[in-house]
């Protein structure tokens, strides 16, 4: 089954319910955008899908490849093909981009064959350089400590590079607040467009319509107060740009 299916997802943080029944299906080859004002649960959805320990699922399931991924550890979800591009990537001092990515690649190989000796270094280097070239990145990037002292744009680039190397089937891009930095947005968009294809489904989370000028979604969803309240095509994003969220809020309240 080539889709990620979120069914009636309820999530709490510190006993406060944030997601109140989210339903959404993302198929490979599709780009979905979730929009909504701050504090409506968009990032909670992203972190929950990846398995962050601070988020407690109280109800619902998320089915991918016939499994409820909510029962899996974050690393197992990743190896199954889920990827989260972090809004704020974490700095890992002392660990280079190359060393980190090689560990991630080897973890995948070992999950298939516990006896695997790891990817030969020349082969890994070649692959990494190719991906960096594809994303127009300087090779010296590989030797830097992961996200340590990176500019906002460099962090975004590093996230996209990880995505290119790990080749996920479902990628969640949490860009909630980073719409402020147009360069960073463009980096993410260019990367996604370069990697997009029939084997990748993308869920972009943003509250700025601007990002969608660069990544063209097939579907747009609006999240308000922990639920998806409206779904439509790209035209929905334009309507939001023009009219804001208040008309939707009123509609939801009336209903």
């Amino acid at each position, binding site marked *: 089954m080539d889709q990620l299916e979120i069914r009636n997802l309820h999530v709490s943080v510190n006993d406060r319910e944030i997601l109140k029944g989210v339903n959404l299906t993302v198929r490979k080859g599709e780009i979905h955008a979730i929009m909504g004002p701050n504090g409506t649960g968009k990032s909670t959805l992203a972190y929950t899908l*990846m*398995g*962050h*320990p601070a988020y407690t699922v109280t109800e619902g399931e998320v089915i991918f490849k016939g499994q409820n991924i909510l029962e899996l*550890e*974050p*690393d197992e*979800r*990743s*190896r199954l093909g889920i*990827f*989260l591009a*972090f809004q704020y*990537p*974490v*700095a*890992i*001092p*002392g*660990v280079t981009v190359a*060393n*980190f990515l090689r*560990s*991630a690649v080897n*973890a*995948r190989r070992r*999950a298939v064959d516990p006896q695997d000796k790891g990817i030969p270094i020349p082969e890994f280097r070649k692959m990494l350089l190719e991906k960096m070239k594809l994303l127009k990145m300087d090779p010296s990037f590989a030797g830097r*400590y992961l996200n340590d002292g990176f500019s906002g744009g460099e962090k975004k680039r590093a996230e996209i590079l*990880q995505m290119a190397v*790990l080749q996920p089937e479902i990628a969640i891009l949490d860009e909630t607040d980073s719409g402020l930095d147009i360069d960073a947005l463009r980096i993410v968009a260019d990367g996604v467009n370069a990697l997009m294809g029939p084997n990748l489904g993308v869920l972009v989370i943003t509250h700025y319509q601007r990002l969608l000028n660069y990544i063209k979604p097939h579907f747009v969803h609006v999240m308000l107060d922990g639920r998806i309240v409206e779904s439509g095509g790209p035209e929905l994003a334009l309507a939001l740009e023009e009219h804001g969220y208040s008309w939707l809020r009123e509609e939801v309240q009336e209903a």
Partner: protein
Amino acid sequence: MQEKPKVVIRRGSRPTVAEKTFAFGRADVRAEGPLREYRERAWELFERLPMPSLEDEAWRRTDLRPMPADTFRLPSAEAYLDLAPVPEALLRPLVAERHAAQIVLLPGGVRVEADEALSKQGVIFTDLQTAEARYPELVQRIAGQVVRPEEGKFAAMAAALAQSGVLLYVPKGVRLEQPLHSVLWGPGNGLAYFSHILVLVDEGAEVTYVHEAASPTENADSLHVGLVEILLEQNAHLRFVELQSWGQHVWNFSHERVRVGRDASVDWIFGAVGSRLTKNFSELDLVGEGATGRMSGFYFTNDHQHLDHDTQQNHLAPHTTSDLLFKGALKGKSRSVWQGMIYVAPGAQKTDGYQANRNLVLSDEARADSIPGLEICADDVRCTHGATVGKLEEEPLFYLRSRGIPRPEAEKLLVEGFFDPIMQRIPFEGVRERFQKAIEEKLASEN
């Protein structure tokens, strides 16, 4: 008005000093050779000095009461023949393709292998007893001159009782490319090892020296007490790698000092992963103008280990530079103590001193104490220090796991990243590999 509360301090009935005493006697002192008088004086000091107690400032965090002092005995001659042999891995060169010479100090014996080219250059690298017989003046020039037996019970003890040791002398202007290597191998139950390392690097000479102390972990507690005395003359340069992987039954004590002369330098690397308990005093005496010293420490403890490193960077002349970084990780119920001091003597202007200690505590029951200190008696100096004790954080772990890296491996990556600044300071791949292996073994250990 409220009366001030009366503070009553009741001392528990438990004494703060060990009750057991060492079972060595005057007859154990080697009353011969050029160090006879020095040893006899040291013995008297040893007998007179009390066992360190928790009330002594330097020993406040290191408890000797559980040490079965009365059970330790000296190994007999050729004891090594019946004990675990030294593993081949310890004899392999660590810092180059090959070493110019190697000394293996064994219980009740010694093995010396030296390249002939060395003696042709006038380099002396031999065991202590041979050195006493053949180079008495040289031995006298160093022994007791850098570390004085008065400095403590254990300093006096090693001075009086050292059965084994090394003398390294590099003559003026000689620059050795290949490293020198010594191994102190101390297997066996209930044994006491006393070692004495003497080094003199003469004017303009340069050498790399690796000294390693190791043993398997045995059943009954053993003891090692060591002295390291190093003199660097004007413009001499020493790279000194000191590794300690004693079995976890060993009580390990040492007093070490490098005296650095004018424009001379020492790059001093410590690696400590062994012993039941270690108390190590390591000092840098920068006595000549332009002298520099760098100290880099790596330690990783687990189970019930207790490692206490007491470091001192003494700036005793103007324009001297010191740079210390000690980094350690702790597992199980282990404990580490780092107590560092930068001292700048009156008149030692234009001094640049730095010290930092970073700890990564990997279990709730482990504990690291980090106590930096500065004592500055000059006004035109730059001294900085830092000390931290931290844990593995959940956010970086989650980040790594979200890329498919299982938790144990993610933890390993973070630990390696933590140690990276120390690795960057070590110019020897073999030593870095050894530390890397230690990280893996410690992380994989159950306790």
